[in-house]
């Protein structure tokens, strides 16, 4: 059986096709990702964008719509996926996906483009507690992106630059607009880019960590979402949370889409 999970994020659309492998005695290996695809939609019409990326991923996998038993959607735009059989919240999808990749995980930190959230989960991947920040993107990827622009660095260089600094510069600004002016002040004070990058990522990590502390940190902890690709942020978050290890999935931006596809499959079993 093949199921699909679509994560309609605020910046990107992620689609995963999951195949039921039926491996007896190895629950976490019962399913495998058949195909995954990410798209940065060029248009504002999310309905059309979802249709297009779904058809693309099916074509790439050599499948037709009728080959897929069920489609579930998640993410900020989940209601726009008209062809989905059901829509689940980012918390439910993220927790299920994280526990699929790491069965020992009990705390999931999800940092995407516009939002970050902390999720406590049980061993089945069902959320028991969650907290997000509804108001501000200062604890999310777009904040880091805006700050990297201010420093004229690519996102990857921004993360790597922060790893070269051992300075702690507190950033007080609570929003991207004020923080950007704080970064400009640091640039004018001839502060090295590496130190500014670390200050920014420490600030994002500190906001994310405050959310996660609301639900409580219980090992193991997984970080999912696009910010996993930012090595500087991962280091800052580890330090802020006081944990030795963060479980980092290989396909971090697809974890919620995988969780969705799993929920679709489990509903049909």
């Amino acid at each position, binding site marked *: 059986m093949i199921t699909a999970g679509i994560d309609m994020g605020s910046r990107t659309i992620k689609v995963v096709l999951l195949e039921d492998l039926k491996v007896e005695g190895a629950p976490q290996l019962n399913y495998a990702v058949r195909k995954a695809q990410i798209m940065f939609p060029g248009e504002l019409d999310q309905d059309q964008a979802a249709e297009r990326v779904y058809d693309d991923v099916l074509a790439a996998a050599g499948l037709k719509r009728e080959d897929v038993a069920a489609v579930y959607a998640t993410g900020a735009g989940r209601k726009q996926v008209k062809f989905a059989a059901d829509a*689940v*919240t980012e918390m*439910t999808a993220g927790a299920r996906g994280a526990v699929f990749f790491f069965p020992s995980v009990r705390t999931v930190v999800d940092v995407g483009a516009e939002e970050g959230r902390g999720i406590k989960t049980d061993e089945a991947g*069902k*959320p*028991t*507690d*969650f*907290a*997000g*920040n*509804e*108001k*501000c993107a200062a604890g999310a990827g777009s904040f880091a992106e805006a700050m990297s622009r201010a420093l004229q660095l690519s996102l990857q260089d921004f993360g790597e630059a922060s790893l070269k600094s051992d300075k702690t510069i507190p950033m007080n600004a*609570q*929003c991207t607009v004020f923080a950007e002016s704080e970064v400009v002040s640091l640039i004018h004070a001839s502060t090295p880019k590496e130190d500014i990058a670390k200050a920014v990522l420490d600030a994002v990590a500190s*906001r994310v960590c*405050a*959310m996660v502390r*609301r*639900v409580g940190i219980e090992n193991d902890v997984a970080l999912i979402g696009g910010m996993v690709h930012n090595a500087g942020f991962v280091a800052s978050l580890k330090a802020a949370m006081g944990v030795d290890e963060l479980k980092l999935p290989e396909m971090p931006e697809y974890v919620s889409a995988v969780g969705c596809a799993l*929920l679709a499959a489990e509903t049909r079993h």
Partner: protein
Amino acid sequence: MIANYGYKDGSGEYYISIDTDKCIECPVGRACLAACPKAMFETLVDDYDDEVVCIKAQFRKSLAYDCVQCKPAGGHTRLPCTDACAPGAIRHSW
């Protein structure tokens, strides 16, 4: 599940927590819906098909301002929503 709705900003941390496990079998007929003077609560069917209460999306970014009339500054010593919730499912972080 404990659902935390709200945010942290420069002035503080503003979350309303709803313990949905206590909320599912509400013994007081969702009294919180009527108790909130700003009608900030609503019911929804969650991902596990349970009917629970949540904070309406339009209030989640402005709790500090929306709840102010029920706080001590507004002359209240107790919160109407937490008082109405007999199972004790609702908590404010501030």
